[in-house]
């Protein structure tokens, strides 16, 4: 099975990615930049969908656009004045920055164009998949089950390490967000102290 994404869909999504990314950098209000970031992430999820990686697309929306970007928006809302004035660009050395960006672009393009990309599913690892409603498929297709099998079989160690990493970051967040123990605990609507 060869992937055959609709070119119109691809170019639309790619334009959305590029456009929203540009908007993130160029937006005058920080909140708009946050919204544009969400747009970028959604478009990337769309690209994943075009590549038939449905699970990855859903997780991209759920985790990136739906949790990380929203956390960013919360941070923006909580630390800025409500309607903040225009952001001024803080670049003091634009030419150096431009040169660096061009070099980065060269590296990325070189790497992208010179490597061989897999354009068909790897049938060596995933088992033949029989969906529960009785269809028989001739060959393996990318699926959540295949992903699950791979996580448990060749990629067990990274899987476990990622879960430890997430646990560590969770504990770290709790420690940071904990109320400062030197401050007195506010009473829960009990009798007030002297005014």
């Amino acid at each position: 099975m060869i992937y055959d994404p609709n070119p119109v869909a691809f170019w639309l999504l790619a334009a959305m990615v590029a456009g929203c990314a540009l908007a993130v950098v160029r937006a005058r209000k920080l909140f708009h930049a946050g919204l544009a970031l969400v747009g970028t992430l959604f478009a990337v999820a769309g690209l994943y969908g075009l590549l038939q990686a449905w699970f990855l697309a859903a997780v991209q929306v759920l985790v990136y656009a739906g949790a990380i970007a929203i956390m960013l928006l919360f941070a923006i809302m909580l630390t800025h004045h409500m309607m903040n004035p225009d952001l001024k660009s803080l670049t003091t050395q634009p030419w150096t920055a431009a040169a660096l960006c061009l070099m980065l672009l060269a590296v990325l393009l070189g790497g992208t164009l010179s490597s061989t990309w897999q354009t068909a599913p790897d049938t060596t690892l995933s088992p033949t998949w029989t969906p529960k409603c009785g269809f028989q498929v001739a060959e393996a297709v990318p699926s959540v089950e295949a992903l699950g099998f791979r996580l448990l079989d060749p990629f067990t160690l990274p899987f476990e390490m990622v879960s430890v990493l997430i646990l560590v970051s969770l504990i770290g967040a709790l420690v940071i967000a904990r109320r400062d123990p030197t401050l007195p605990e506010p009473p829960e609507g009990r009798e007030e102290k002297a005014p």
Partner: protein
Amino acid sequence: MEPIFEQFVRDLTGGFQVPFWAPMLVSLGLVLAFIALNAMFMIWLERKICGRIQRRMGPMLTGPKAWARFSMWTGGWFQTPCDSVKLLLKEDIIPAQVDRFGFMLAPVLVFMAALAVYVPLPISSTSYAQSAPIVVAVADLDIGLLYVVAITTLTILAILTAGWASNNKYSLLGGMRAGVQILSYEIPMLFALMGPMVLAGSLSLGDLVLVQHAGLFGVPLLGWFLVPSFLGAVVYLICAVAETNRPPFDMPEAEQELVAGFSTEYTAMRFAMFYLAEFSNTFVVCMIFTAVFLGGWTLPGFIPPSSLNLGFFSLPYFDLLAGMAIFFAKAYAVVLLLMWIRWTFPRLRPDHLMTFGWKFLLPLSFVNLLVCIVLAAIQQIYFGGNPG
């Protein structure tokens, strides 16, 4: 949707091949029409149930007078269309100090989310001219459950944007509260849905329903995931009420405190978008509950014939229609339950809400997941896996 639609058109026109974009447009049209009609009906139903619980009659003055005189339940049919027309005719006020882009974007986003979530929801299936059932949904995605949860994050975004863009302390408070509430209750919801996922071995909603039809341990009556995953069903229902900002979880929109929360500054059609999206989401959540826990469009042990012989003519697609009727009956029963809850309970305070979600529902959903894993393992080992 594609196979059903193509089959339908072929039967109707004798072999016409539809272009690739036709099923998409037809689905879009059907879903939009359904959202509109369903909202009208549900709002009327909500007001009538509210009236019944409060020992009054609800809307009675609109619509044919003869109908109203007959009983409480036949009066006021035109109330919601009248309200919609009123909302359409209202002046669309955009306060001067709001952020125009965000202000205008938020209702669009919330409606997008409400619309997008209908995609994987199966309402029926057919075995018409095929050996295996074809599920009737806009697209029975392999990752149906995950997709549905992912789309609720779009709602959070819309509410946050609405709250921030309104340039109003009340709206901001309301928006942030709503965002935090939905985020917190998404996690127990996801875990509660994982129980049925483990039992069925698939994330696809159509698959979930078909496995429920086959039954647990070979017994069709136990098949509904309400039975093995009862805790999960309860957790899911509570989280669903929280996700849609319905009372008793409607702190973000609490009239008594924040005027109208994040939608304070919205008037006319923009407000109608939020309102419509809320009702649509309520029904979607009931649909998901029906599909995942109540056996969807199936009844245990009953397979409707693919065409009903009525004597003088035979009704085709009967299995499809019967499935749809059963599905909507169950979904509306859950809707009635949600409305009953709404008009009985007081409102939760925000910190109680958070405590309840994180400290009670989340552990409960883990327990449910464990139970379901054990049951699925028993099913796998002793009863030969999930029936195909």
